[in-house]
């Protein structure tokens, strides 16, 4: 007798599976990573405990987790907004940089003129959104009018945006660069944001102080807006149809080009606000150091966040928080007695397994017995 393993699509996706599978995947990940840890001579339990403490429990941990989670929520939401419609915007990384550049310019310009703080901050958010949307529109236009793959064009533009960012701080005496004072000549840095352009944070007095950045509030609002837009409006419906079948959408009279442009712009705008939040909430200057913002790869991690959240805007927030914790805690784990590569392996196993588990939500694995064929 012949047994065959088949993977087939589930006709229905039971709700309970969507909850059970991620937890089971996480457990499997911890078991696999545990084997790796034991094999390399580390105690898995105390390692996990350290990871968990550093992400959520120890003094100042939540504060740092939020620093990582906020940009991930922006880029995750940017990816979710586009991927849901099968428009694969890989360019959140570059759109984030552009949002930071344009958003900080608004902060310097209006803040320097003594504008009221709420007005300056609102302007930075709008400017960041415009910067990101404009940058995303480049691959959007190419996709809508010439059918160019947005995956490649948006990806390539990330490098261009990175070079622009470095150029503004390291290779030119631009508007964004600090040119005054002795320190400015020793190493190039961004100009500090005027104080009325710094975004406020609400401090919770637990755990050695947890600062809730304004950006975290903005992203919750943005998630709600996107949810309504995609679930409750005609625009959302049409875009959904477009995502399912471009041909069907076109025959039913949906203006596909406009929709592609709009989705790219929305996605880019969300990433762009994330860039403005980097400047307003955290760095308080434009970080052009290739060993700084650009090394964090928030845009690429956002794709993982979106996939794990199944492109659901609210789930993106939760997943970004968890991945942000994992990201931040990795720094606590590595050290002289724990190679940083091993931290990457553990993080990789967790992401790989949880993403792989998604297969089981949508598909089921069955053993099919095939009766032996009778030959004459």
């Amino acid at each position, binding site marked *: 007798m012949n047994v065959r393993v088949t993977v087939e699509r589930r006709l229905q996706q039971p709700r309970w599976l969507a909850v059970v599978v991620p937890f089971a995947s996480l457990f499997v990940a911890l078991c696999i990573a545990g084997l790796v840890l034991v094999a390399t001579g580390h105690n898995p339990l105390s390692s996990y405990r350290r990871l968990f403490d550093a992400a959520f429990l120890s003094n100042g941990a939540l504060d740092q987790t939020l620093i990582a989670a906020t940009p991930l929520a922006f880029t995750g939401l940017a990816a979710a907004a586009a991927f849901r419609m099968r428009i694969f915007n890989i360019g959140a990384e570059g759109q984030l940089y552009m949002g930071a550049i344009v958003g900080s310019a608004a902060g310097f310009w209006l803040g320097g003129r003594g504008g009221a703080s709420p007005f300056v901050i609102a302007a930075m958010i709008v400017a960041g959104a415009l910067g990101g949307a404009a940058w995303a529109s480049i691959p959007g236009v190419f996709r809508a009018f010439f059918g160019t793959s947005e995956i490649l064009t948006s990806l390539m533009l990330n490098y261009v945006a990175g070079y622009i960012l470095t150029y503004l701080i390291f290779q030119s005496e631009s508007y964004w660069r600090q040119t005054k004072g002795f320190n400015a000549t020793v*190493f190039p840095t961004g100009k500090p944001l005027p104080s009325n352009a710094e975004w406020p944070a609400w401090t919770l007095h637990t755990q050695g102080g947890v600062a809730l950045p304004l950006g975290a509030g903005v992203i919750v609002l943005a998630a709600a807006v996107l949810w309504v837009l995609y679930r409750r409006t005609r625009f959302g419906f049409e875009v959904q149809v477009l995502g399912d079948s471009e041909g069907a959408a076109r025959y039913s009279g949906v203006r596909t080009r406009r929709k592609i442009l709009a989705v790219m712009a929305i996605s880019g705008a969300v990433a762009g606000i994330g860039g403005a939040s980097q400047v307003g909430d955290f760095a308080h200057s434009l970080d052009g150091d290739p060993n700084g913002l650009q090394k964090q790869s928030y845009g690429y991690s956002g794709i993982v966040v979106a996939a794990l959240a199944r492109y659901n805007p609210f789930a993106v927030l939760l997943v970004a928080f968890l991945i942000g914790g994992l990201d931040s805690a990795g720094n606590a784990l590595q050290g002289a007695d724990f190679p*940083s590569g091993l931290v990457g392996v553990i993080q990789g196993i967790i992401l790989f397994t949880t993403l792989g588990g998604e297969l089981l939500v949508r598909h089921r694995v069955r053993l099919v017995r095939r009766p032996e064929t009778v030959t004459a």
Partner: protein
Amino acid sequence: MTKRKLAVAVVGLLIAATAVVLALGTSPGKAKSSSAFKVAFIYVGPHNDGGWSQAHEEGRQYVQKTLGSKVQTTYKENIAVGAQFSQTVASLAAQGYKMIFATSYGYITPQIAAKYPNILFEQATGTLVSKNVAEYFGAAEDTVYLSGMAAGAAAKCNTIGYVVAFPIPEVIRHANAFALGAQATHPGVKVKISWTNSWYDPAKEKKAAQSLKGQGACVLGQNVDSPATGQYAQSVGVPWVGYDSDASKFAPKSWLTASVYNWGKYYVKRITAGMNGTWKPGFYYGTIKDGFTKLAPYGPGVTAATKAKITAKWNYLKAHSNAEFTGPLYDQSGKLRVAKGVKMQVLKGGTNSLYGMNWLVKGVIGSPKG
């Protein structure tokens, strides 16, 4: 029981079991927690990069060996400036670290220093001194000059390639010292530079080395952290001058020498002061005389005559640090920048100081702006 209930029950059990095990599991680091003074080192690249970070790592190991159980040291590698640094410092603070050596510019900001007033910070290569921040570095330009002499003597053509990181005064100063040294043993030699815009990026460094070779360089040098330039140099049979660490094992045939650092002595001194409560912020600039900067052992390509010349200059620079930056010094356009007999100072003098230099000396080909 339905399949669904079973699955939910199993997962619930797993979560509960994991939580219990983690809660009861050995708490991290408790076994080790003693009265040891905890010190952390932050590296911009891997701890074994064969260059800058490795030199600091050797310093850390020297500290651990010298001070023994009185200190507990660790390192954090590949740490980005900004968010990742602040996350790392927060976790170190939570684990009770008392002193942090940030070994690259840009890590420590006034905000971070103010947020952790009880941690003693030290930053390499910077200028930000405050109540709990000290800065340290050394006159590598002296030894880079000497390594440039080895490069100039080994050059059979008229062009030397120099792979450089960022267009900032530190790197410009080293490129200038290298060129002046090369010109001392090989009058009229040109030094072509290629920027990588990264401290540690083996792929970019190799590409830069390739392009310099393609532009006619017959000796390669570097002011970046990895030995990629050397590995490429050996593959094409070109002599190579390294930087930061003795990296001769990566390209033993091409290896000439390198300007290297001895951070350990400084670290022991500062950490001892930190333990005794006598630590004070300041700006330390080590020299050959301090044993802070040195020249790595020579490779096979350095002739006895060259060694003799370098030794003579070594003795002079040991007594007169930074003497290579004494006028007359001309910039790339041939304009006199530093008048005859005038010696540049470390911090004072704007663009004519070691820490403010933003122009390249005559004979360097490339832009000081990156």
